């Protein structure tokens, strides 16, 4: 029953061409190394879901892995645009991608509905926004108890959700602490779950503001120290703001991006880069 595998195996066993994948983590604990491995394994036609498709999805999109992006805020936080996303969406390079655009509240509730095994969740959202006319998977419904109009968002159930966390214990339970965003819901909503962790510990020292993902929900775990870099892992390392700024230059031109892709992703093996589980 070993759930602990190499990053290579975790991705190859769980991510298939055409899958709907959610790599979650909000600013904190973004599973960057797992994203790189998806690129390295040249997965194609993914529907990529994520509240904030920052660097991680700019890279996946630029590498041609993504056919559709489902998101609620797309930018390089504090820096600017996602050039690879814009190039794909506006110019079709390296391939045309479609988008389905939500609000944070809406996409979070799509995960909530998925986690709950419901066809939809309800919120008071999107109202007044032109997103109402441009976004799939939302609908207005009437309250059965009063005169209110309410917004329903369809459940999203990713084929695989991938998150990064600080620790896995001996049995394969995972603990993440600090900001976890909508990760818990994305995990509960998924058919398969991959977790990369900073550290494999014998047992947890319980942490305040932590969430526990029981091993029963997890398909595979890969130990990938610094697997969230250049985002951060509270208790392990800080956010590398310079890397976010540097990305702007790398991603601006197809050539510099392609060079990055070649040198930093394809030329490296996942094991050499991030270490492997055991």
């Amino acid at each position, binding site marked *: 029953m070993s759930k602990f595998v190499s990053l290579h195996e975790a991705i190859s066993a769980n991510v298939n061409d055409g899958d709907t994948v959610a790599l979650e983590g*909000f*600013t*904190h604990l973004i599973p960057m190394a797992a994203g790189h491995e998806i690129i390295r394994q040249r997965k194609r036609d993914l529907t990529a879901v994520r*509240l*904030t498709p920052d660097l991680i999805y700019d890279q996946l999109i630029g590498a041609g892995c993504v056919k559709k992006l489902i*998101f*609620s*805020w*797309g*930018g390089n*936080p*504090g820096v600017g*645009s996602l050039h690879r*996303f*814009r190039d794909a*969406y*506006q110019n079709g390079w390296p391939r045309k991608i479609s988008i389905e*655009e*939500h*609000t*944070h*509240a809406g996409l*979070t*509730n799509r*995960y*909530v509905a998925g986690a709950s095994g419901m066809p939809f969740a309800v*919120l*008071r*959202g*999107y*109202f*007044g*926004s*032109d*997103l109402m006319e*441009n976004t799939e998977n939302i609908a207005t419904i009437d309250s059965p108890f009063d005169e*209110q*109009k*309410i917004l329903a968002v369809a459940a999203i159930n990713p084929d695989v959700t991938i998150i990064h966390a600080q620790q896995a214990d001996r049995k394969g339970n995972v603990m993440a602490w*600090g*900001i*976890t*965003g*909508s*990760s*818990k*819901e994305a995990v509960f909503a998924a058919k398969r779950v991959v977790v990369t962790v900073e550290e494999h510990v014998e047992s947890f020292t319980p942490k305040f*503001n932590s*969430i526990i993902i029981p091993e029963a929900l997890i398909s595979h775990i890969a130990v990938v120290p610094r697997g969230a870099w250049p985002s*951060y892992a*509270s208790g392990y390392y*800080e*956010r590398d*703001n*310079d890397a976010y*700024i540097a990305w702007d230059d790398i991603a601006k031109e197809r050539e510099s991006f392609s060079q990055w892709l070649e040198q930093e992703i394809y030329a490296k093996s996942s094991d050499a880069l991030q270490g492997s589980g055991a």
Partner: protein
Amino acid sequence: MAISEINRAGSSSEPEKSPWNSNEMMTIAAARTLRDGMICFVGIGIPSTAAILAKATHAPNLFLIYESGTVNTNPQKLPLSIGDGELANHALSVVGMPEIFNYWLQPGRIDMGFLGAAQIDRFANINTTFIGESYESPKVRLPGAGGATEIAGACKDVIIIIKQTTRTFVPKIDFITSLGFGDGPGSREKNNLIGNGPKYVITDLGILEPDVSSKELVLTSLHPGVSVEQVLANTGWDLKVAKDLKESAAPTPAELERVRALVATSSRKKS
């Protein structure tokens, strides 16, 4: 209309050199609108600076929530990202985003929300989605809604912070990401929104507030050194000016010192 044409013909030159810059003035003006004990939904950048400034000065019990899940946080440095470790480490608690959006924001529990925008119109509707002709083929694709649509909908009051130019203050925004007052009185109710909508639009030139009955933005305060003509020249519609137009108090040395100290903590600056 003739008047506005004339106004717009006015110079768009910079205000004369003052001992503060326009970001500092916007920040300080925003901070002053916050009252102690308010629950504020805060974003990165000027909103954070304003909120931390207010907390350090006249509103020590300001209750700050960030969409990333940090509840009643008390950052000592300027956070660089919405999920900055600084916010988590100084928070009363950190919760998941469903709790933030469903339990805190949606029921109208937030007193004041902050928004920025790429475009704003006379009814304080704002656009953070794209610039251009069509959603499918934008000229410039912007990040999108994030938390903004529901912040605009559900907070009791909203402050919009935006630099004032004819590119940002436009007659018609290309996409309504977040509703201000729609097309006037009644729009918010028609759209099932429970919050009061934008209360202040704070720019580098002054402060605009919605007219009580028409809901159209009115210039109510000029920042020191700014003329009405400048404001009108930087607004893409025939902006109304309040009869009792005020001048914003100049930043005090203490305020400026605090703001600059805060901005200096930002490691973003080192790059």
